[in-house]
């Protein structure tokens, strides 16, 4: 186990806090000190909240000493993606159109996590409105990947991924409309969960695409995610997309036993339609061997073409995106960064018929996905390729290429990203585990069993190197 408290997994820190061998105040101070030391190069936090964090940490320490922790989050430093509204704290969505926006109410997730004794250390950078990026013409520069700062932490929950991986916090809340929790978690060597559509309330989260938006947790391990999911799940009548479905005991589900489970692999997606790289395929095969060794049965499954899921999702997303941002586009289009503006504009000429036909295709694709899950317990596939260079990408590249993550936004199924190794350059590989609707318990059980059977969760980025780079940046600015 690491001796650096900022690099503890949430569950480890929670156990130590409960045993009074770790002080929430000292843990929070260490996270804030890490932010001061390295975020000049990482750009993961857009609005730090150190005064609030220290007040919450002191309150947590007093309360825990008096009567023990109220939850496993008690005294744990966390961050929120900057589309989560926070009362009295600026919430920009990384957009110049909201650069001075200070909400008067907390979103559902902040209410739940603060109520559980969590310590909010800041709001994290995102791609503008969780959609277009990386961009350099918005309110703050994009985050960098702590494993290699020349590389991207992916998006759109990029700051959340970078902040956890560098030890600025132990957990974060992201949002996922096409992979925006899972991909930053993946390339930052973390775990990230997109729950079932409707499992977690999105009340108070600035929308990207109503019909595909999901809120979910990011942290080091599946166990950490189970802790957070229990706290944020449940029916919220103020989110019309929130489902009234009982919440499981996710931590109790982490038995380590996956013997007899049936794992489906969509080989045609991985090998033919959207081929995985050679190194990533090797890491994926190794992960399947680990799961076979734990007693799972692996079998191929067939699904509709992966590009159909992405086409349906994008036509719907661009239509909804335009409907949300149309007033500002008409009056102050220059307030949007070029990347997001291109995407909003793209939605302006879509017709009602295009939207409805994409929704009809979505129904067909979701039906096929649920049919596949009648034959299997979970589906396993790569999440994304290891991080590429942090650079502007041509906006039109999104139209014709699929992703391995978006199909589960279309179908609504829960999907988890975990780390399954590192490439020769030291960048993380990632594995995706998807499950039946509202069966996050099985998804997390598989992720947890894999993590416990391997050593990948022990690695952390090189903080001394990050500190060196950050100090050079400060010197250059001075």
């Amino acid at each position, binding site marked *: 186990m690491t001796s650096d408290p900022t690099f503890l997994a949430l569950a480890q820190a929670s156990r130590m806090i409960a045993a009074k061998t770790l002080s929430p105040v000292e843990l929070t101070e260490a996270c804030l000190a890490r932010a001061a030391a390295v975020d000049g190069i990482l750009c993961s936090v857009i609005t730090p909240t150190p005064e609030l964090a220290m007040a919450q940490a002191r309150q947590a320490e007093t309360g825990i000493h008096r009567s023990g922790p109220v939850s496993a989050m008690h005294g744990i430093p966390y961050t929120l993606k900057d589309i989560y509204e926070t009362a009295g704290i600026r919430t920009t969505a990384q957009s110049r159109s909201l650069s001075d926006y200070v909400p008067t109410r907390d979103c559902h997730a902040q209410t739940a996590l603060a109520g559980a004794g969590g310590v909010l250390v800041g709001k994290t950078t995102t791609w503008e409105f969780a959609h277009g990026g990386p961009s350099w013409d918005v309110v703050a520069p994009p985050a960098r990947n702590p494993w290699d700062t020349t590389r991207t932490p992916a998006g759109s929950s990029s700051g959340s991924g970078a902040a956890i991986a560098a030890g600025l916090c132990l957990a974060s809340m992201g949002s996922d409309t096409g992979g925006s929790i899972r991909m930053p978690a993946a390339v930052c060597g973390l775990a990230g969960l997109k729950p079932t559509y409707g499992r977690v309330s999105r009340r108070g989260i600035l929308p990207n695409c109503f019909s595909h938006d999901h809120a979910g947790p990011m942290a080091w391990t599946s166990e950490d995610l189970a802790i957070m999911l229990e706290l944020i799940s449940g029916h919220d009548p103020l989110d019309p997309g929130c489902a009234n479905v009982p919440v499981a005991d996710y931590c109790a589900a982490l038995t380590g036993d996956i013997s007899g489970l049936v794992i489906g692999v969509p080989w045609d997606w991985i090998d033919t339609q959207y081929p995985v790289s050679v190194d990533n395929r090797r890491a994926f095969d190794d992960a399947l061997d680990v799961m076979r060794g734990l007693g799972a049965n692996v079998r191929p499954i067939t699904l509709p073409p992966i590009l159909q899921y992405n086409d349906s999702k994008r036509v719907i997303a661009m239509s909804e995106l335009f409907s949300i941002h149309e007033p500002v586009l008409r009056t102050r289009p220059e307030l949007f960064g070029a990347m997001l503006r291109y995407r909003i504009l793209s939605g302006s*000429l879509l017709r009602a018929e295009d939207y409805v036909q994409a929704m*009809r295709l979505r129904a067909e694709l979701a039906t096929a996905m649920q049919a596949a899950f009648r034959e299997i317990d979970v589906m396993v596939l790569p999440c994304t390729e290891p991080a590429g260079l942090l650079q502007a990408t041509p906006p039109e590249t999104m139209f014709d290429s699929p992703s391995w993550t978006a199909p589960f936004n279309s179908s609504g199924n829960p999907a988890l990203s975990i780390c399954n190794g590192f490439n020769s350059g030291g960048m993380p590989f990632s594995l995706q585990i998807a499950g039946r609707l509202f069966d996050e318990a099985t998804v997390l059980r598989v992720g947890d069993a894999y993590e416990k059977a391997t050593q990948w969760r022990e690695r952390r980025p090189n903080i001394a190197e990050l500190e060196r780079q950050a100090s050079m940046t400060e010197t250059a600015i001075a």
Partner: protein
Amino acid sequence: MTEPAVAVGTPPTSPQHVAILLQHAHLNLPQAYLDELIDAYAYVERMVGRIRRGRQHADEPAYVFHPTVFDTSGV
């Protein structure tokens, strides 16, 4: 069997036609943004063309209206 909306090989919509569509949408954009849109629309059109049509009349879209979720009177 359903079919793509646009047959393979169909040429993209002309910039002039995009400008007319924008007029109908009452969207008056600066020239720079208009150029962006004309560029983007070719990709949008191709993507929309891959969404199949010709479904059975009763094929419902994924969005199904549940009126009770909008009754927050008890909250």
